[in-house]
């Protein structure tokens, strides 16, 4: 089973070497998609041993992930792991993420911050943004997942072929979840740890996600 880790990166020179070296022991191949960074992300990722691509224009995290997926699928990856470049996730948890797919129990695995393991989630995010996001994804989108916004996920080759990411921005997260349910994929959630170095997506970002989802639904 060939496991490819796709890491979208934008101006992550500070973390990318550490992240790539951390991930490499747990996967067969690390693909970094540099989303037109203005710093040394590209060179550092290459030096750390990743296969690196560079978008000639900044297109957003969703676009970078799909570029990575396209490459991985073309090179016969059996499992694709999506991993953030900002050193928020623990590389050692990749084995937990791919386990349900390896065992044949799931087609797609979503990481969750709310299934036991402790993440140092900012209070405002924990008690306001996340409950609102969860309510929205449950009631409006019909997604029953404990973590509505988590970038740590693993997809089987079949799942990656059936889920094409059209939202180039942060709405890709919800888009992947929606498509996983629409395609009736076998879904698993795995507890993961997120180490926060910065606040991440704000409440206004949530409204942008809703707007982007709506627009892409119309232009589909």
């Amino acid at each position, binding site marked *: 089973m060939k496991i490819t880790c796709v890491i979208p990166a934008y101006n992550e020179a500070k973390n990318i070497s550490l992240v790539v070296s951390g991930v490499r022991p747990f996967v067969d191949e690390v693909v970094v998609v540099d989303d037109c960074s203005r710093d040394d992300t590209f060179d550092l990722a290459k030096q750390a041993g990743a296969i690196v691509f*560079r978008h*000639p224009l900044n*297109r957003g995290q969703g676009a970078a992930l799909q*570029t990575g997926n*396209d490459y991985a699928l073309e090179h016969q990856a059996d499992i694709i792991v999506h991993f953030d470049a900002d050193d928020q996730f623990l590389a050692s948890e990749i084995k937990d993420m791919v386990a349900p797919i390896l065992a044949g129990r799931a087609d797609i695995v979503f990481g969750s911050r709310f299934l036991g393991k402790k993440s140092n989630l900012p209070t405002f995010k924990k008690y306001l943004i996340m409950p609102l996001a969860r309510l929205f994804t449950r009631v409006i989108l019909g997604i029953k997942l404990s973590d509505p916004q988590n970038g740590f996920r693993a997809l089987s080759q079949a799942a990656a072929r059936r889920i094409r990411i*059209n939202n*180039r921005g942060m709405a890709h997260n919800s888009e992947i979840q929606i498509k996983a349910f629409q395609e009736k994929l076998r879904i698993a959630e795995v507890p993961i740890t997120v180490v926060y170095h910065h606040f991440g997506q704000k409440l206004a970002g949530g409204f942008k996600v809703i707007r982007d989802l709506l*627009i892409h639904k119309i232009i589909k």
Partner: protein
Amino acid sequence: MLQQIIAIVIIIFFVFRLAAQKKKKIISHNEFSLWLAFWLVAAAAIIFIKQIDRLVAWLGFSGSGINFLIYIAVLALFYLIFRLQLDHAKMDKNLTEIVRQITLKK
């Protein structure tokens, strides 16, 4: 009456400007036709404002004709912005696809 004359003068100014743009080939024939039709409809609405008043009253609205025209204009603007946003999103999607193909050198 004075307001109607001012409005018509403004429209005439824009129609002349439009004709000049067409002459200099800044805009295409189709664009010229579209904008000319727009300004002619606007001029007709101003000239026949009394008839529009009566039409609005007949339709059961309490406001005057000019209010009705403003409401219609606001609705039209919202619709145009929405259409622009959709067109922009489609172009954006295509641009992302081109960037991806260049990146992966397909």
